């Protein structure tokens, strides 16, 4: 059976979501997305220049990709909701990545406002992917209010620090039914593989690909890492033993008793 990721009404073969920010030249975007074999591509609505076909980033995203407009720049739930509606009205589809960031230093998300925006937009029929700091209760609330997936950060956006929030993300993977897409902080393919190996459903990578010396080759490298990590997860990695096999067992007498 094909291993597909289900989000909203879409079945996806690729588990690597990519972005369109930070590229030296927008002409690099189509080839990079192709090399990354990505099917979901995020772009900040605030950057979309609808007036200029040459600058409009949407024209650089392959047509068979799902557009994932994000609400970058929103400081409150209300602003995120407005941005999502503008994106839909402008023809960007009904998927939206909620980003509510009111901290300009670390760009950490405001979980409370994100829940509010998710609830409103899910009711309106959007496929909502909220970007959050990994927190179990927040993820549960997002599940209740109709999120289509949860996107916990691995580390602050653009930090390339890797899976710093690993233990918290692990709990979300264990406890939340929705797909978990690790977003932000992944700086190297090995870190993407690490997230996939532990059971994340997908990862979103932008900075590490867009700012690489060769974004196209880096896109390919990430695709390979995500595929490898996913296969390893499905294959069942060997259990890591927390204890050594004792040479003088304390429960040996039970066998003697039984035998």
């Amino acid at each position: 059976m094909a291993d597909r990721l289900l989000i909203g009404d879409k079945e996806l073969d690729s588990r690597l979501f990519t972005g369109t920010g930070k590229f030296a030249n927008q002409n690099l975007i189509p080839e990079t997305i192709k090399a990354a074999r990505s099917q979901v591509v995020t772009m900040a609505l605030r950057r979309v220049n609808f007036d200029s076909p040459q600058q409009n980033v949407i024209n650089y995203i392959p047509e068979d990709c799902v557009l994932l407009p994000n609400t970058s720049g929103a400081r409150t739930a209300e602003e995120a909701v407005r941005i999502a509606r503008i994106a839909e009205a402008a023809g960007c589809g009904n998927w939206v990545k909620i980003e509510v960031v009111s901290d300009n230093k670390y760009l950490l998300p405001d979980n409370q406002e994100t829940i509010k925006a998710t609830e409103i937009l899910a009711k309106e029929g959007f496929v909502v992917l909220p970007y959050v700091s990994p927190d179990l209760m927040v993820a549960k609330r997002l599940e209740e209010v109709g999120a289509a997936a949860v996107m916990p950060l691995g580390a602050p956006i653009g930090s390339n620090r890797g899976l710093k929030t690993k233990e918290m993300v692990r709990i979300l993977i264990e406890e939340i039914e929705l797909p978990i897409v690790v977003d932000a902080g992944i700086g190297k393919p090995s870190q993407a593989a690490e997230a996939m190996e532990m059971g994340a459903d997908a990862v979103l990578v932008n900075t590490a690909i867009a700012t690489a010396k060769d974004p196209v080759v880096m896109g390919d490298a990430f695709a390979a890492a995500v595929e490898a990590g996913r296969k390893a997860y499905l294959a069942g990695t060997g259990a890591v033993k927390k204890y050594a096999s004792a040479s003088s067992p304390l429960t040996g007498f039970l066998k003697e008793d039984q035998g």
Partner: protein
Amino acid sequence: MSFYQEYSQFNQLDFNSFFKEVNSADVERVLGKERLTKKDFLTLLSPAASNYLEEMAQQASKLTLQHFGRTMLLYLPLYLADYCVNQCLYCGFSVKNKFERSKLDLTEIEEEAKAIAEKGIKHLLILTGESRKHSPVSYLKESVLLLKEYFPCLSIEVYPLEVAEYQELIAAGVEGLTIYQEVYDQDIYEEVHPDGPKSDYLYRLDAPERGCQAGMRQVNIGALLGLGQWREEAFFAGLHAKYLQDKYLETEVNLSVPRLRPHLGNFQPNSIVGDSQLVQILLAYRLFLPRAGLNLSTRERAELRDNLLPLGITKISAESSTEVGGYAEPQEGTNQFDISDDRDVDEISKLLDNKGYQTVFKNWHRI
């Protein structure tokens, strides 16, 4: 609480003895750190740090790439009026300089807007001379209501306003505020602003904070380099940016590095900021405030601007006219200062492309 408390506290510092004591080991220790303290920042502005510009540049370039990517935001300034009631000794618009003043009416503003929008510009900075009488808030508001039809992002650089007035302009469509203290050294400030409303040091110092309180999305501050001792001026401007960043998380804080330019009048700078000093300031800003926007105007000559780009710059202006209007029908008027880089939007955009940067015209969608 105002930044003035912090200014007063650090102003007690004996800067000369501090700088004399900083040695290479101190600079190297700072360069090995991930988060810099205020003292570390001052260390990077020291004479000892001037031997480490390459190391600082490597780090600054990397940090900027990480946080802002290979992109550069392009904007244009539009002067609406040059009436001014102040007497800044260093400025061509000073009330003491006699020339024919002008102010655009709404029809003229619309002509300028069309000419600028035609170039693909989306971020516009609107400026006036400092005169409440000639350019009242009502005039600014009418201008904004008209300009917002052409530009998704508008910033203002006008005389300091009250919180409620900033709020009124935000409601009309303003997103950003630029206001330079010009000089943080209070004694020099009072000397070069002998009269007029601008002579009120504190009212100006608190203006960026009032902008944050009003809800500006971006605030851009700076010291006019050359008016005071540059190491101290850069230090205070950096501290001011940090103060705003720490206190107003929702506002994106930016710094500019304007250097005194020739203008109408004959003011001589108190401190000469050469190219390598300018570089040291930019690099120290970037290392101290990794996420702050750094803004470079057409005051600087083309060749230098090209070389400064990878050192931390995130926003630049193009083909700026510093006379009133000047885009719809360019003419020889009176400029606030002379510009050094007169390349047009297409040329700058091509240059950025050659240098490996995507020109970002639009970074906001009015909601």
